[in-house]
């Protein structure tokens, strides 16, 4: 895998997210209370709500539009709702966040 540096972990609020624009669309990069980092699609499969704006709890996010809840590990919707969002490899080195370049470039996503 080749990793791209997308920024400092402290630029994301604790229990919050920021988006990264990529060739495969907007990706939401989440930071949980104990500094875990997850990268998933920003777009809710229900009606395209921006997941980066949802409330982050544990390792889940609640979509701000109609409260679907997604597990950030698997991208699966929880409870009665059905659907899932793509997840992307991401890791933290020191305070830098690295995103997998291949999975977010158009060629491999096609």
């Amino acid at each position, binding site marked *: 895998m080749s990793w*791209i540096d*997308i*920024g400092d972990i402290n*630029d*994301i*609020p*604790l*229990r*919050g997210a*920021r*988006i*990264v*624009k*990529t*060739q495969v669309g*907007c990706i939401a*990069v989440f930071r949980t*209370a*104990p*500094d*875990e*980092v*997850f990268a998933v699609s920003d777009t809710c499969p229900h*009606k*395209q*709500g*921006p997941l980066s*704006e*949802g*409330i*982050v*709890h*544990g*390792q*889940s996010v*609640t979509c*701000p*539009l109609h*409260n679907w*809840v997604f597990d950030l*590990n698997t991208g699966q919707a929880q409870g009665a709702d059905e659907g899932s969002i793509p997840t992307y490899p*991401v890791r*933290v080195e020191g305070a830098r966040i690295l*995103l997998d*370049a291949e999975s*977010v*470039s*158009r*060629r491999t996503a096609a």
Partner: protein
Amino acid sequence: MTKQKIVVIGAGMASGRVLENLTDAAPDQFDITLFNAEPRGNYNRIMLSPVLAGDQTYEDIVTHDDAWYADRGITCRFGEKVTNIDTAAKIVTGPNGDVAYDKLIFGTGSEPFIIPLPGHDLDGVIAYRDLEDTERMMSMGEGNKVVVIGGGLLGLEAAAGMAARGVEVTVVHIMGHLMERQLDEAAGYLLRKSLEGKGIDIKLQANSKEIVGEDGKVKALMLDDGTELPCDLLVMAVGIRPSIALGKEAGLAVGRGIHVDDQMLTSVEDVYAVGECVEHDGAVFGLVAPLYDQAKVLAQTLLGEEAAFVQKTLSTKLKVTGCDLFSAGDFAEGEGREDIVFRDPSRGVYKRLVIEGNKLVGAVMYGDVADGNWFFQLIKDETDIDEMREMLIFGPAYQGGEASDPLSAVAALPPEAEICGCNGICKGTIVDAIAGGATDLAAIKATTKASASCGTCTGLVEQVLQVTLGDEFEMPAAASICGCTDHTHEDVRRLIKSMPLQSQEAVWQELGWKSRNGCHVCRPAINYYLLSDWPIEYQDDPQSRFVNERKHANIQKDGTYSVVPRMWGGITTPSELRAIADAADKYDVPTVKVTGGQRIDLLGVKGEDLPNIWDDLNKAGMVSGYAYSKGLRTVKTCVGTDHCRFGTQDSTGLGIKLEKILHGAWTPHKLKLGVSGCPRNCAEATCKDIGIVCVDSGYQISIGGAAGMDVKETELMCSVPTEEDAMEVVLAVTQLYREGAKYLDRIYKWLGKVGMDWVKEQVVDDLENRKALAARFELSQTIYNHDPWADHVKAKADKYAPMADLTLEAAE
């Protein structure tokens, strides 16, 4: 055979263990010389804390005394700091002369890090590393004040040790919770609570700015918010740095520490290093367990045996009596992990296990650490825990398991905790009444008056009955806030006030939350309750808010936002209108709409444009209209005496005043007001949450209107003669609603539960209470009456933009 000459630099815990291993295995094989900068031999450094606390003496913690060295023929050169090494000639130089070696061992440990604050070199500024530091702290006693910078293991042991001697201790810590590297927030919260119970004052998120001195001696620590903390001694315990200076001069390869391989060999032949001074495979060390492993490997290497040092998972405990904590493994970072949380508020217990796949990878516990080592073993052995997953958190002893008890928070309340706020009835009074034969809710109401007024404490009174009577009392089922808790909104609100609970962590722990940090249902409610009950003590948490309140704009179905600037009382000016028109052009606003609340709405603004459009509107003198908030929305007015021939009072003026004083206040649900200048009621005041209708004799104030899914007319609360009275009544009833209502109940719903009679008692009849309510509202407004747009433009505008844009990245 001539003996091999070994020279050891530093008589510390790591080198001490090397010497034990060597001389045990081969008593006569080596001729050993031991240098130590400290004027003494090896003692158990980690036990300095019990010495400080007065539980042990220095003599108790000496590991190697003179006889031990003599027995093993070790030449001791204590009090001599090695100054030079010639690795080519293989000679070590100390103050009292040279020694030649065949093998050289570095065991120089580490040096405490001293933050180079102004004043760090004053007398009375010390670290916590050796016996001298400990003795200096032991010279403090009752009447002395000490500040400790650093809320990690060392700082807290120092603080607790001195507090046990009657010293007034303040710990200043830069992070949001104590021991952040070993503990999560929940355990950090419990630790803080028990240390505060020992009289230690703890300041979190506190930044030290300067050490103030007088005649060359420390006098106080100054924080960057201007707080001055007077002290007779200042202890810095903010971290350690491996002692590498001597090694570097001698030409050894160093990074953060002295580089060593798996056999503890440095980059130079015949020179070895062990302990905190080394760096192995990128890691440096601060706990003794791995150092003992290193010592063993080095001894074996010197004896010609094969051995290799491997890094292992570590565990931590704090040596402070009464603070039982345990942490091991990795409980913070990483994907694909699952938490198991157990809390028992009545015993102050918190346990959290972190599982990855079917292995335990981390454990944090507080209050009950008996199973710590069992968990630690599971982590180290990478045991497959799939079979025992369900009961794992209860430890090896419990295969039956104990469920967490929703009643334990109430059981843990002290007798003086207030249960009924209206009538000031404490738990003890209710328990006494139960003992006196009042065994159901009606009897409690009749004998104590608890829950006899507004009734929101009913649930808690029932829990007191249950806790006291056990199975003899049958609890009616009540709906809990969400799956994270068994408590109802009403119980949580009441307990936040009476326990008191002033942080989210306190609520999660003391009320036994079943999740780590709530969910989208309970967390916004808890955030609201905390900020409304503790405006000064608690800090609003934007990450616990729905996006609209976090971004101060309304999210639309396509992810764009609507922006509504405030127009006080619905009054605007040509220049404001021009600024709005300019902003609409500049940011390509697709829709401009006049709202029913007498405002202008700019719909369809892109998220990343928000700070810019706000800045433009701010410059034209406009602030956020809070059209997104569970808070004051608008005060709608008619033109009143200014222009209208029917007007009886200045309805516009009153509306503007009310809006100015109320704006920024958070409420359980949205709050809309209307002020009409006469009973023709052009401002539709009687379908607002609070409506004011002006009449010749003054002001009619009514509450509980709505015009949504439910349509309600307001109910008259009172008539008052002056504008001043009207303002005070409005503030008081707003505060009563803020303090009592369930999150997401609008005034009419709340009113339906507590009843107009009770509200009148509180706000209309009891003048003193009215004033007190209004004063509490104004106190809260000293924090919240501000413009969030301006704050965001100034402080976090860049957070609205994407973190990175990879669309332009060359496609390779």
